[in-house]
């Protein structure tokens, strides 16, 4: 048995009991207390652009059909037939007006409503026996969107997504709103790694310290333009709302010059100036910080980088969105999408895709070495010695809590939240403190839904 109260106390002071990265009891708690409440990313609108388009995505073991119905409305329904519980959609992507259960032939429109119930009269005595009218697949308890990103929550009383994201939206816009049209997503690549889901989330949230060591090889082969990854310590990490991330410090210049420096053509820079707020432009143009990796609690991460993709000094930016989908306490399915501004020139899109493939994803040269570390860490965290070891995650703080480098002032960093330059683990502590706070709350039982009786199966989605 784990001393939960002691574990949470240790985590909150930045001392991490190593077993939290491979602990079945804690994983069961995470399923109940985090993934049954938090907003979880499932898809982007661009993946289901046309009426009838759908993708099937999971939140832990629960499969959801995320579809655009014939009226263009985006919906997410639990992928389980109301009759005997078969998966009504067994593909992962496609276009369909209806989903038909192969077991007994019940069918549903892409807005979730029952369309066909074989032998309704003969088998049930019609509406009196089974109230078909108004019945639909079970909707996701909550669904909300930001910049085209579709999130669902298993909590019907979840706070609005905008409130959950909070000031992190300021930073999310850099990745997802480079023009009025926003991003289009491709993929995802999916693969399973023998690592705990929290490790990737922490790494992307704030680990600038690993770059010079873990990623030495990509600097040596010239994928990185800068001769040394040590430049990372000049960047800032920030935490705002329910997310945080890392930045690189750019050479002197204004917004246009610095954005071009990382490889954006002027026409894209011009569009960014129309969609980004003054403060969002100041972080780049005045403060000189360019966003790189980030994580939104609990398991959604982003990365923006600008490698060399050909034998020249030019660099090419790319964006990836990724989810650390927990499978068990020691296995994670990574879903890694390539994202690109929808209004970007076709040639830019092609090279940005190339940059993504070279750096991140299943074959990415950065990601290959990251995963090797995370698998090893997870493996080591399983044993009894890991229960005795408290990992020091207090980087950036002296023993008395004094900051090694004081926070940037609002004049030095125009974004919301708190930002620090230098190597630190502020963001990893923010993430794991939220983790502890979620696990430390009393569970609320979910309500049941009855099918075919007079009680309607869940309320219709607004």
């Amino acid at each position, binding site marked *: 048995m784990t001393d939960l109260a002691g574990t949470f106390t240790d985590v909150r002071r930045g001392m991490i009991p190593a077993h939290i990265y491979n602990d079945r009891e804690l994983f069961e708690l995470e399923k109940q207390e985090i993934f049954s409440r938090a907003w979880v990313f499932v898809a982007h609108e661009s993946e289901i652009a046309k009426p009838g388009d759908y993708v099937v995505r999971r939140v832990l073991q629960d499969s959801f059909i995320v579809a655009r119905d014939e009226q263009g409305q985006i919906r997410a329904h639990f992928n389980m037939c109301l009759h005997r519980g078969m998966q009504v959609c067994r593909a992962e992507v496609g276009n369909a007006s209806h989903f038909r259960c192969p077991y007994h032939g019940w069918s549903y429109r892409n807005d979730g409503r029952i369309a066909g119930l074989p032998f309704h009269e003969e088998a049930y005595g019609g509406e009196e026996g089974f109230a078909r009218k108004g019945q639909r697949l079970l909707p996701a308890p909550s669904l909300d969107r930001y910049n085209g990103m579709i999130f669902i929550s298993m909590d019907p009383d979840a706070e609005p997504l905008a409130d959950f994201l909070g000031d992190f939206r300021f930073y999310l816009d850099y990745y997802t709103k480079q023009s009025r049209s926003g991003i289009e997503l491709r993929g995802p*690549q999916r*693969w399973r790694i*023998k690592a705990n889901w929290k490790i990737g989330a922490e790494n992307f949230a704030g680990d600038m310290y690993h770059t010079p060591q873990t990623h030495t090889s990509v600097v040596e082969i010239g994928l990185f333009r800068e001769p040394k990854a040590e430049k990372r310590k000049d960047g800032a990490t920030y935490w705002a709302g329910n997310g945080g991330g890392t930045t690189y410090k750019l050479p002197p210049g204004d917004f246009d010059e610095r954005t071009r420096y990382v490889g954006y053509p002027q026409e894209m820079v011009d569009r960014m100036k129309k969609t980004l707020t003054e403060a969002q432009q100041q972080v780049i143009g005045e403060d000189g910080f360019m966003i790189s990796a980030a994580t939104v609690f609990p398991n959604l991460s982003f990365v923006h980088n600008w490698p060399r993709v050909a034998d020249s000094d030019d660099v090419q930016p790319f964006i990836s969105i990724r989810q650390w989908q927990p499978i068990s306490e020691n296995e994670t399915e990574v879903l890694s999408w390539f994202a690109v501004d929808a209004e970007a020139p076709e040639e830019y899109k092609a090279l940005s895709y190339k940059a993504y493939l070279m750096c991140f994803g299943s074959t990415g040269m950065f990601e290959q070495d990251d995963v*090797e570390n995370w698998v090893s860490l997870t493996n080591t965290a399983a044993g009894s010695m890991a229960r005795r070891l408290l990992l020091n995650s207090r980087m950036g703080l002296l023993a008395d809590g004094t900051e090694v480098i004081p926070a940037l002032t609002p004049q030095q960093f125009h974004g919301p939240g708190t930002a620090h330059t230098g190597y630190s683990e502020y963001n990893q502590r923010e993430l794991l403190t939220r983790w502890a706070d979620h696990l430390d709350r009393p569970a609320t039982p979910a309500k049941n839904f009855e099918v075919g009786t007079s009680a309607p199966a869940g309320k219709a989605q607004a």
Partner: protein
Amino acid sequence: MTSTHSSRSALGAHASRFERTGASLAFDDPRHLQAYRWLVDEAWLLDAQDYTGWLETLTEDIHYLMPVRVTTALGAGFDTSPGMAHFDEDKYSLSRRVARFLTEHAWTEDPPSRLRHHLSNVRTFATVDDDHLIVDSATLLFRNRGDIHPGSLVSAGREDLLRLTAEGWKLARRTILVDDAVIRMQNLAIFL
């Protein structure tokens, strides 16, 4: 021109477009024997992680493509993720991948994996050009890392375009159709 994975790729414009003609060549046809030998030699190069040697067997205009497979309904008309791949490489990007393995800091292969590329179902087709052959094959890669972890597998079908050059046959185009939608390997720090 037939629409192929390679021709549809945003990064495939430079690739050779020769396609198969007619039925597969007889197994005692010298062209088949040469293609088969090329593939067997390649499998041994890849098992040994002799990537410098492997790079020399690729043409300058190679397109090395491994689309992401997706599960779709029967009749959907597609079974790869539109516009997304695991590998979508030219000679430059492959050379960077190889250069990385040659540094002392490619941690994911230190200690190195034990690799075995099992090769089967090889058949060869002529093209309209005598110096180009199409070769189909199946490959099953077994990869084991460390001492205690079970190994992992990747199964795939491949379509290769081989070109006869002054230095012998070289690979000018490869399309790898992996049989997993979700890859069961920690990364693809390997070549198929």
